[in-house]
């Protein structure tokens, strides 16, 4: 393969890895929005919290796989607690109040992280089996990014199966489309809300943990991941999983090629794209409601 073509392919796989990571993060965000009408500003903060948990577990046990298992679950539990004791209390005040509570949660998480782990970047080391490069079709590629792509596909596959093939998934999808009706049918929707919020933050936690070795773990992580995830959700259409998937992959590629060709404008491209989409479709590309 010629060096130029190899470069393009390498960037494409880079973009794919970041896109999958982004979808892992934004799938939870868009599901929470679709179901509860809350745009969870603190979503990426929970991802960051999980990344810090991962660092802590890694320091204590030295085993990345254990950290990958425990940290997102711990993040998810934090999410469930926040939903149960803070968001549910303001639910009747409307969406604006819920949005503001998540802003408060975001600020608190940011400061807590700074208090316990300081402000400097922490390096998360991946296990030896994920280090190094693989040769494939005349191209060397870091194993870890391939692992990110594989893990994301596996988790999203399982989540997709649960969502579309089980009774629980049916209840969740029904609650997304009409929560009042499902409640009237005798299903405890607050528990479903809590469950989805927990799973959403768990997915965000996994995204945060696998992003740790790529970006290093630092307090600005939530801003960096969060803005991208918001763009994905807003452009893809609020509450649309399919839209989020397509836009996440597109943004991943846009980011990868943008950094290569116009490094200075790469972060701007994303927002310009978002403004362009919203100018013509205020509900996002695949959104049906506000």
């Amino acid at each position: 393969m010629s060096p130029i073509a190899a470069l393009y392919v390498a960037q494409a796989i880079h973009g794919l890895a970041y896109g999958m990571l982004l979808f892992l993060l934004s799938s939870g965000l868009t599901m929470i929005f679709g179901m509860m009408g809350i745009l969870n500003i603190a979503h990426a903060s929970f991802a960051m919290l999980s990344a810090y948990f991962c660092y802590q577990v890694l320091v204590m046990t030295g085993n990345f796989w254990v950290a990958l298992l425990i940290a997102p679950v711990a993040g998810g539990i934090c999410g469930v607690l926040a939903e149960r004791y803070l968001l549910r209390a303001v639910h009747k005040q409307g969406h604006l109040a819920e949005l503001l509570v998540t802003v408060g949660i975001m600020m608190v998480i940011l400061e807590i992280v700074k208090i316990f782990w300081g402000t400097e970047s922490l390096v998360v080391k991946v296990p030896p089996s994920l280090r190094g490069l693989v040769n494939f079709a005349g191209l060397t590629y870091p194993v870890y990014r391939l692992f990110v792509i594989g893990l994301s596909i596996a988790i999203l596959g399982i989540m997709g199966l649960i969502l579309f093939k089980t009774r629980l998934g049916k209840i969740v999808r029904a609650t997304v489309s009409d929560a009042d009706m499902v409640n009237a049918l005798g299903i405890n929707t607050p528990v479903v809300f809590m469950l989805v919020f927990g799973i959403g933050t768990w997915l965000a936690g996994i995204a945060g943990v696998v992003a740790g070795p790529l970006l290093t773990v630092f307090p600005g992580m939530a801003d960096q991941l969060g803005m991208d995830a918001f763009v994905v959700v807003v452009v893809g259409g609020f509450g649309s999983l399919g839209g989020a998937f397509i836009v996440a992959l597109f943004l991943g590629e846009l980011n990868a090629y943008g950094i290569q060709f116009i490094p200075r404008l790469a972060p701007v491209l994303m927002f310009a794209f978002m403004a362009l989409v919203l100018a013509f479709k205020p509900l996002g590309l695949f959104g049906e409601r506000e």
Partner: protein
Amino acid sequence: MRNYNYKWILWVAVFIFLAVFPRVFSIYYINFFAAFAIFSLYAVTLNLLLGYMGVLSFGHAMFFGTGAYATALALTHIQGFPLLPAVLVGGLAGALLALILSPLLVRVTGTAFAMLTLAFGQLIFVLALKYREVTGGEDGIGGYPIPPLHIPGVASIDMTNQVNFYYFAVAVVAISLCLLWFYTQTPFGNAVVGVRDNAMRLDYLGFNLPQTKAINLVICGAFAGIAGAVHALLQKLVSTVGVLDISNSFTPILMAYIGGVGSFFGPIIGSGVLHLLEDLVIRFTQRIGLVNGMIFILVVLYAPTGLVGLFGAAKEKWFHKEKVS
């Protein structure tokens, strides 16, 4: 009649307080008060969107920051740029930005509006960070001259003097607040409240809905820009993290919520409470964000109408009992 006298006395007391303040307190508190005044104006412009028009601006720092940058750039690059035009340039820049964004922003409401303003705020932040030959990047712009206030034929007042600058800043903020107060009392200001309460009905009544929203947006942008301009003159330094950062968008929201959304004077009270609290907290800990975040959650949970709402409820309970029953 008695009520009228009472209000008149209150305003005189406020005026005397403002005039005497720099003679009584130290330089630190003079600057502290000037910062409080600037943020009051900033929070009031946010509340004109949040409380009056019913949309939450999550990127309000872009108007504030653009105003600050415009003033700083004008003072840096134009030799002998006078003081009042420098402030007006900031307001003009904020208005211009709002005008450019208004075709997009008037189309959306609710969460979408919040997200769109957040995105544009971040866009401006990133642009300011990347175009360092214009904006100075992370370092920002500093060291520009603060021109004297030149009144033709009367005097030229040195604005590097902190006390003089205090009077200037407070005067600019007070005039701006007066203008905004009269603006909310006009029929047009009432139409803006109508946008919040029942946009469809306003549309049927023959008001041009997008235009009404856009004009309100431009006015908010202009006065937020003026606040930014005075901030730039006070701090003598404009940096991306200082004025355009997302936390600077959250601050006025927090102020408006503490004071009371929808009341004109609420954000001013909120700004005062937050500044005093910050002054108090910083003696014990550096983690102001933690305290602010917790207050944010507690206020939204337990006092969604803010201090003005609590005060009104208390007044209703204790002083107007006979009227209620």
